[in-house]
């Protein structure tokens, strides 16, 4: 069974708010969820992370997350979306604190933003 699950694709129009969903499985008390964007060139760009200890949803520029810890769900929210936001977005689970060596990746969500 998938440990990190994402929907395959979604789309939106420019300037709208986009929400990408991710659900995960873990029995760890401490873990980190990270979001990456893969550009069409193949480059992976880090966007934002949320730890299980964070009591507030994290925000980084136009990116924010909605963390529903009890549901083991985390959504990435992109505000004022632009065509340049098109790409594939990956959610990754890191557990526990010291195991930064192996992230468990979702299969990615392909996002298309139309002008």
């Amino acid at each position, binding site marked *: 069974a998938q440990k990190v699950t994402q929907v395959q694709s979604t789309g939106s129009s420019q300037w709208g708010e986009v929400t990408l969903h991710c659900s995960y499985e873990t029995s760890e008390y401490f873990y980190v969820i990270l979001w990456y964007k893969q550009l069409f060139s*193949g*480059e992976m760009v880090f966007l934002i992370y949320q730890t299980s200890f964070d009591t507030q949803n994290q925000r980084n520029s136009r990116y924010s997350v909605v963390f529903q810890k009890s549901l083991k769900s985390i959504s990435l929210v992109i505000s004022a979306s632009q065509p340049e936001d098109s790409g594939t977005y*990956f959610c990754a689970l*890191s557990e526990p604190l010291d195991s*930064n*060596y*192996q992230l468990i*990746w979702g299969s990615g969500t392909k996002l298309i933003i139309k002008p």
Partner: protein
Amino acid sequence: NAGVIQTPRHKVTGKGQEATLWCEPISGHSAVFWYRQTIVQGLEFLTYFRNQAPIDDSGMPKERFSAQMPNQSHSTLKIQSTQPQDSAVYLCASSLEGSGQLYFGEGSKLTVL
């Protein structure tokens, strides 16, 4: 500050040939990772170095794949006797010790004919 540098960006080899991919991690990062990405399998962990020492190669196909990190500024992934199923984008990433944030290179796209 330069990011993770991977070379070559594209490599085409014939079946049975050897392919070597290079990665230069971000200066000061102690951890280096190799991943393989295909449409079918998604992102697959291959191997991981910490302070140049191999820590976990559980994702490496044992027979033909090998990875080394001879110095802190350079890691290589070598595939011997390449097969068409080795065709993929190979991603290298580095991170600071204890950080879950990986910085990725742009990847090396390997095509085996």
